[in-house]
């Protein structure tokens, strides 16, 4: 127990050391850029300048400071990411179930699931827009499409990882199909489902930022491209770069935390 704790501490220590190393390299880079470029803040600003911009108090648009703009748009993006993620995860899970139930279906569509990932969203977007006639609904649907794949594949792998012997055993105990799923397949595939969920959580956020840029309105992607177009302070861009890394990581650990809460209970039920 004690050993485990100290190992954990080391893990964080090394992350911090890496982080410091990275920051040092960034700062050296920023120093070089500052000396040679006319507008260094567009290429690589100092970290303290980015952090400083978070605390700036002057209003940038009619009513908000830089940080308030980033925060309010982050809310919009995260909300869309969350809904897209839930829809995508549910769809992925159901699809995996269906594919496990009907093997021909799996053979038929599994190769295409990978392919859907390869269609650039710019190609998908006009079709989705033509169907929904609403850019925000389209954004959520596209975010869902971009995130369902890891959940689907991992769930399917989890369902298959349950050996046929165990399914046979359940059959011999006269358990019905529903019973088998409820008692055996669903609980034992859970760790795999969570692997999928953990992979797709940060993906949902990057996907949501990406679909923001399809059109105007609100969202991190929108203000990111506005900032790149110099329609507003470039520090909005840099803040988003930093924050998106932080939220991405946080989403991963958030799902891990949920897994830890859900799993102990499942273990008990899983050991039939």
């Amino acid at each position: 127990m004690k050993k485990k704790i100290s190992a954990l501490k080391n893990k964080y220590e090394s992350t911090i050391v890496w982080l410091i190393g990275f920051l040092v390299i960034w700062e050296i880079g920023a120093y070089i850029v500052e000396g040679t470029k006319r507008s260094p803040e567009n290429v690589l600003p100092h970290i303290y300048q980015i952090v400083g911009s978070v605390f700036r108090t002057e209003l940038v648009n009619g009513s908000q400071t830089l940080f308030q703009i980033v925060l309010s748009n982050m809310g919009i993006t995260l909300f869309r990411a969350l809904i897209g993620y839930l829809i995508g995860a549910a769809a992925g899970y159901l699809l995996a179930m269906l594919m496990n139930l009907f093997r021909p279906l799996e053979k038929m569509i599994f190769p295409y699931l990978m392919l859907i990932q390869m269609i650039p969203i710019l190609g998908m977007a006009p079709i989705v827009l033509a169907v929904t006639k609403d850019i925000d609904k389209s954004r959520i649907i596209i975010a869902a499409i971009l995130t369902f794949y890891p959940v689907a594949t991992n769930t399917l792998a989890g369902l298959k990882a349950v050996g046929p012997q165990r399914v046979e055993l359940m059959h011999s105990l006269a358990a019905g199909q529903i019973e088998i799923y409820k008692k055996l397949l669903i609980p034992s595939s859970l760790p795999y489902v969570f692997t999928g969920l953990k992979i797709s959580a940060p993906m949902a956020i990057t996907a949501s930022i990406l679909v923001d840029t399809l059109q105007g309105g609100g969202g991190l992607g929108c203000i990111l491209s506005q900032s790149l177009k110099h329609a507003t302070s470039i520090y909005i861009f840099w803040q988003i770069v930093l924050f998106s890394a932080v939220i991405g990581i946080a989403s991963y650990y958030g799902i891990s935390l949920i897994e830890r809460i859900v799993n102990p209970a499942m273990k008990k039920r899983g050991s039939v």
Partner: protein
Amino acid sequence: MMKRKNLTGKKAITVLLSTAILATLLSGCGKEEAAASVVVDEAATEEVVTDETVATEEVTEAVSEAAESTGPYYDSGSDVESIVIDAAEKGKVGNWGLGNEYEVQALLSKYGQDTAYLSQAFDMDGFDDDSISLASAMTYNELGLIKNDYEGGYGYADTVSFIDMNEEGVAMLEDNLFCNAAFAEENPNTVKAFIYASMKGWEYACANPEEAAEIVYKYGSSVSAQHQAYMAGEVKKLVETDTKGVAVSEYGKMDEEAMQQTLDLAKTYIKLDDSAAADKLASLTLDEIRSTSYWEEAMASEGELGAPEKAEVSIQLKWLPQAQFMGYYVALDKGYYDEVGLKVNIVSGGGDIGETTAVYSGQVDFGVTWVSNLIAANAGGMDLLEIAQVYQRSGLVLVYKLNQ
């Protein structure tokens, strides 16, 4: 399988590789251009005491003196031809592409150059760091950012000059008002009412650009207040002057000659890979892209246009909410839309799903686009109809730095 190597060797490789990558990243920034940036820095700090405000007329007068180069940039007073040829030969002409490039290509062709150009990001960093020496800019936006030194600006003041597309005879008309042809047919009163109120908004905005800029800012544009004010002043010029420099008093008028020039240039420079679309483009006439009747009837009326068929309408802008579109914001703010019985929602643009797609798909009813984009969309198979031409001259310029 693998040869025996010691582990430290591998570690060393890891370290080497990662440092090598970082080094490539960073060293690049240090090299080169030290000299160039020094020149620029001095220029910027000198505050330019001389009163050489480089008016466009001076530049385009084509004083073909054998310009002796005194620095890495262009001398003030050098003729347009020599600048264009020099930049084109160095491969340093920049444009954003994505349907904004035709005027630049027409200019390059005019001076016998290849129509290739560098892709310019939607900022002026490439111009700033000299990877582009002849950069595209809109008079009301990028040119202001280059010259001014408020946030987001580059502060070049009068150390830059520009080539004007209107004066070079390669102007194409830009911001207009359009909708689906079928929509106009089914909702003539809505269309006329929308045109009437919008043009009233433009008229007020051009009479009071400072107030218009404040209104746009109030509606949540994140463009800084100073840049917004600059923009409003420049947009006013584009709305009230035609391609020949003659004042225009009728807001939204579709000038036949300028429209035809736009269509002709579009046919020459829009390159479509789809042979069906290319054929359609070649045969396109003005009547297939615009209708003057809605505008004429709207302007002839005194706002008495009959009940609109559709009272709740939306308009998609071509770009981010900014003073470029001040007329619509003013019409909304001053209640001009209410007066004609319309409830209007302004949708900002700037994403890759363009205004043409948004209107075509029925997501919005009206849109603001460039005439060339509308031409390309109709060639591709959309059936869009221009109903008013807000900008009477091209706002596109090619900007270059001056030797000091």
